[in-house]
């Protein structure tokens, strides 16, 4: 079986041929399995956004290849077009892409570009709206009349309605309050559970990703610095720190507890997990 997305020696320069030429990503080789939920982390400027913009052909590689579903997306015009529909990309601050008169029409923009039938479009819009929690009474409203959080949901629905095989979120929680973040994580988890599609989440917040990713890819200086399961990556705290990243605060707290001789596990990445362990500990039970 082919990978959902595969890159082969992928390299991209910005401002090519000028003095400011920089390799934003350099010789990246990645495989993303179908149905996987992958987190991509890295400090600002490490090349995350550039990398994912190659997955649906928004950027053309300067060298190397991008394979979606085993097919080189730059083979011809049709493969490129198909890659846009197979790989849905939800940019940072997606609410700034809203433009239609009504929320409904905006969510329908993608499916319409796919040349689907009216009935199919309607079905998809309603499904995406339900997934993202866009209220039915908002569908007829102008997207500019919604609140910030509601706009974000509507915009995410606009990408989800294309029902791509791979859905990518670039910093989806940026600018949201803690509740908004939590809701969003739930939303993504839910979407994954129900559709079984491949999901890629780009973030520099380790906490958000820890709770949901099957695998983590760490970008540093335009290349892939590490990849592996959450445990594997987060156990290398010192290396992460040297790349300008931090392990989640809760992990730090547990490391300190361990240093004090309290018998708690080291692999705690979310507050929820930590809370459960502490509760059992306080009740006198053994830590799991």
């Amino acid at each position, binding site marked *: 079986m082919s990978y959902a997305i595969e890159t082969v020696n992928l390299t991209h320069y*910005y*401002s090519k041929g000028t003095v400011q030429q920089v390799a934003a990503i350099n010789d990246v080789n990645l495989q993303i399995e179908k149905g996987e939920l992958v987190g991509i982390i890295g400090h600002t400027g490490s090349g995350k956004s550039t990398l994912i*913009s190659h997955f*649906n052909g*928004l950027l053309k590689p300067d060298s190397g290849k991008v394979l979606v579903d085993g097919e080189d997306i730059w083979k011809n015009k049709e493969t490129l*077009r198909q890659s*846009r*529909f197979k790989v*849905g*990309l*939800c*940019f940072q601050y*997606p609410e*700034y*892409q*809203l*433009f239609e008169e009504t929320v409904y029409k905006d969510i329908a*923009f*993608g499916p319409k*570009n*796919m040349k689907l039938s009216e009935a199919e479009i309607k079905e998809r819009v309603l499904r995406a709206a339900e997934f993202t929690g866009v209220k039915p009474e908002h569908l007829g409203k102008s997207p*500019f009349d919604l609140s910030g959080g509601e706009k974000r949901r509507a915009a995410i629905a*606009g*990408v989800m309605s*294309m029902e791509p095989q791979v859905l990518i979120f670039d910093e989806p929680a940026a600018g949201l309050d803690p509740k908004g973040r939590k809701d969003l994580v739930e939303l993504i988890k839910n979407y994954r559970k129900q559709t079984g599609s491949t999901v890629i989440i780009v973030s520099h917040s380790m906490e958000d990703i820890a709770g949901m990713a099957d695998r983590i890819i760490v970008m540093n200086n335009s290349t892939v610095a590490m990849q592996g399961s959450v445990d594997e990556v987060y156990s290398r705290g010192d290396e992460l720190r040297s790349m300008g990243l931090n392990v989640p605060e809760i992990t730090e707290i547990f490391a300190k507890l361990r240093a004090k001789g309290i018998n708690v596990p080291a692999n705690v990445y979310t507050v929820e997990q930590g809370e459960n362990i502490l509760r059992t500990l306080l009740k006198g039970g053994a830590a799991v």
Partner: protein
Amino acid sequence: MIRDITIGQYYPGKSVLHRLDPRMKLILTFGLIVVIFLCKSFFSLGLIALTAVFAAIISRVPAKMILKSLKPIVIILLFTAVLNIIYTEGGTVYFEKWGIAITEKGINTAIFTMIRIVSLVVISSLLTYTTTPTMLTDAIERLLSPLKIFKIKVHTLAMMMTLALRFIPTLIEEIDRIMNAQKARGADLESGGLVQRAKALVPIFIPLMVSAFRRAYELAFAMTCRCYTGGEGRTRMKQMKLKFRDFAALFFLVAVTAGVIFLNIKFEAVI
């Protein structure tokens, strides 16, 4: 990438031209442009061309950059040259067929106009190469400040110009971002006829407008918070003072003008 377009083509440097008072540079540029149109003979025009070359050399802006500023006008140059050759008649006839005559006067006029346009572009692009847009608007504000007596809000106009220039790169970045977001939703910006393409711009244009207004409000708010109330009673951080070199430059302009007038009288006019 749309971002690679350069606007406000300042070329950083420390040459005499860079250090010249921007007000004086504006006056010099306009002065020279007027003088270019006073030229009548090849000799006076030659003096201007020499001046342009001289200014380009002392500006230390690489020749490559200056040629780049000429690139957009190549078509116009060729076009005017052809028109001049075809439509101007007089003097020795070199070629005549199909009702088209190529004459000595036609060729002279064509060459003359070409040199004139090139000098014009070189001189005015030297102004923008050696002066930052902010310095330029600042200079315009000061030069126009006498208009205040006619109740024209010179400061406001200059501030608007500065802000507009400042936001060009930001808006270009924004367009880039929005275009990518809509392309990711399958928007097709490249194919179709004129109407279809114009329609395809709607998903770009509306978010752009929305964000431009949002930015404008935010900026106005931020400026108010920092007690900006317009030009009234504002002092400046950077004072402009005319120095010796500025007067020397002015003298240079006067000398060139005198030279042009002298050569105009002394030699036969081309046009």
